[in-house]
């Protein structure tokens, strides 16, 4: 059994507000193995981006990690001082965000941004860093990389910009890349290109990916395992094929049915009534109980923990034996 690369244990993220404490992420545990692609899906407000932000230490105050631990191999990273965390970010954990225009500085050439990042983390000369940067841009599929490297971000199209961001995330050779909705701002025809580049390059560099998205199609295509989040909690986690073909948690079942598919047409979609509760009004018991078609008495009073229901699969639902109370 190999050691997990990243280990998240009972993580909780809270935001103190005037009206009390809002819990954005509650009691989440999962591992990411070296080289693995873990997909993280959920609707807006489910806490998926917040989990990613907690791992890279970028939760905006007054938000804070209230409980739990995050381990990168054998180093605990959730309580590091900011300057130490900055060394890990970029060097060990790379980041790709949704909007490539906001993650690139519009005032600097691409070359400056790449070379600076490489030299911050690795002891190489400027020339060597530039060579490395050109090679990376070439790898992510930017034509004529040695010339385009001196362009400014606005001179690239949306898809090309996202390729630059991928290069930037990978330039110091991180072991883990956190990609938060990397293709949401892109057109479908470009989306496929970007996912492929990201997957190929991470595999080449031996980097694991935590892929945060609301698009189940992207997950189906790219992920090895998938975690489904609901109201700040992990509803289900397991191998991607199992979860898509045979979801266990009623929420994941509803989510799969709600996706319109190309093969079938003009029938009604399965829909989950209602919407996800606001963070200040999460119902007692299972957070999904008011919308759940299979709800019974226990669900309304007792909160299920995300527990193992069969080898390699965990779910938080009282329908399955072996689920414990949170």
């Amino acid at each position, binding site marked *: 059994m190999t050691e997990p690369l990243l280990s998240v244990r009972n993580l909780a993220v809270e935001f103190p507000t005037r009206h009390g404490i809002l819990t954005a992420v509650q009691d989440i545990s999962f591992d990411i193995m070296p080289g693995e692609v873990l997909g993280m899906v959920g*609707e*807006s407000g489910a806490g998926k981006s917040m989990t990613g932000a907690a791992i890279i230490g970028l939760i905006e105050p007054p938000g804070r990690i209230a409980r739990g631990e995050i381990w990168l191999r054998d180093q605990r990273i959730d309580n590091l001082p900011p300057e130490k965390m900055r060394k890990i970010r970029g060097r060990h954990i790379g980041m790709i965000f949704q909007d490539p225009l906001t993650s690139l500085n519009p005032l600097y050439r691409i070359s400056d941004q790449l070379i600076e990042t490489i030299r911050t983390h690795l002891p190489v000369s400027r020339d060597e860093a530039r060579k490395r940067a050109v090679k990376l841009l070439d790898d992510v599929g930017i034509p004529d990389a040695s010339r385009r490297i001196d362009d400014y971000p606005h001179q690239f*199209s*949306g*898809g*090309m910009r996202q390729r630059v961001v991928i290069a930037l995330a990978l330039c110091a050779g991180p072991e883990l890349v956190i990609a938060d909705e990397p293709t949401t701002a892109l*057109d*479908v*025809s*470009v*989306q*496929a*290109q970007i*996912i*492929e580049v990201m997957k190929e390059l991470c595999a080449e560099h031996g980097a694991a990916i935590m892929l945060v998205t*609301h*698009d*189940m*199609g*992207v997950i*189906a*295509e790219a992920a090895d395992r998938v975690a489904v989040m609901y109201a700040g909690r992990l509803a289900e986690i397991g191998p*991607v*094929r199992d979860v*898509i*073909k045979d979801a266990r948690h009623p929420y994941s079942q*509803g*989510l799969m*049915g*709600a*996706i*319109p*598919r*190309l*093969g079938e*047409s*003009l*029938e*009604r*979609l*399965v*829909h*989950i*009534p209602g*919407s*996800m509760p606001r963070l200040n009004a999460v119902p007692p018991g299972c957070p999904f109980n008011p919308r759940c078609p299979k709800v019974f008495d226990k669900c309304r009073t007792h909160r299920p923990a995300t527990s193992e229901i069969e080898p390699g699969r965990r779910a938080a639902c009282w329908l399955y034996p072996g689920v414990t109370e949170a």
Partner: protein
Amino acid sequence: MSEPLLDVRHLSRRFDVSPPWLNRKLERTGKVYVNAVKDVSFSVKRGETFALVGESGSGKTTIARLIVGLLEPTEGEIVFDGQSLSRGLQGREARRLRRRFQMIFQDPLASLNPRWRVTDIIAEPLRAFERGMNDRARRLRVGELLTLVGLSPEDGVKFPHQFSGGQRQRIAIARALAAKPEFIVCDEPTSALDVSVQAQILNLMKDLQDEFGLTYVFISHNLQVVRHMANEIGVLYLGRLAEVGESEALFEHPRHPYTRMLLDAVPDIDMTGRRRKKVEGEIPSPLRPPPGCPFNPRCPFANDRCRIEVPGLTPVGLQAAACHAVEEGRI
């Protein structure tokens, strides 16, 4: 076969995106135009859904705005139920025609006035079109509309920010239905919503269509959603129609290389092992469209003719495609 309710004929819209006069004189440059929509024709049958799909910059939203009269076409004509809309309708006639169609926008937060209560928002079309209606009747009607879209009449006293995204889109739908229209233009109505909420809204829209015999023009970039909603589909690329046809036929046998590419690019959610085909390149800037067929720089079947001559829509099987290769029988 029902007769078309909406007929769009050779519609074009050009935008002037020139730099200011002084810059033009100093830099000795001319005026710059974007052809956002170029020679688009299609018709929508009564009670059916016509979908326009395309990527960003393909002109879908411009067409929506042209249809509802938020923009004036540069060329071409829009005929609604036998009457031309682009001839500058005046007074009572315009009012009578306008109340028969409505629009639903992508972002419900931007299309609902944040300072108005929901009742006032939904009652606004009633005030404009049902002048004879008294306050009491209007309040009752707003309550009915709210119930119709799955909200409760008591929600009327709230403000838009007190609702979730899906509920806001329901409010926008209730407002669109208030004037009892026959025809609704929906511009990406669900693309700002989560999948489970999207399913609710799509189902609601279909139910309303069945109940009131509504005709939709449905604009989206999401092929799966379009497949679910539309009877007929028009595929747009850089302001021109690449292919038009009956939904089933178009999905079963896409003709135009761009339509094929779009279908291949849809992620394989059922994990049948089909790999997404990698598509080369991106949509070129509408400021400098390539000569000839707009798709030629990305097309695997392009030849010299495609680089010079703009293809027109020609019928192939059950649909029509604008492609030289298809017309010549090369693919």
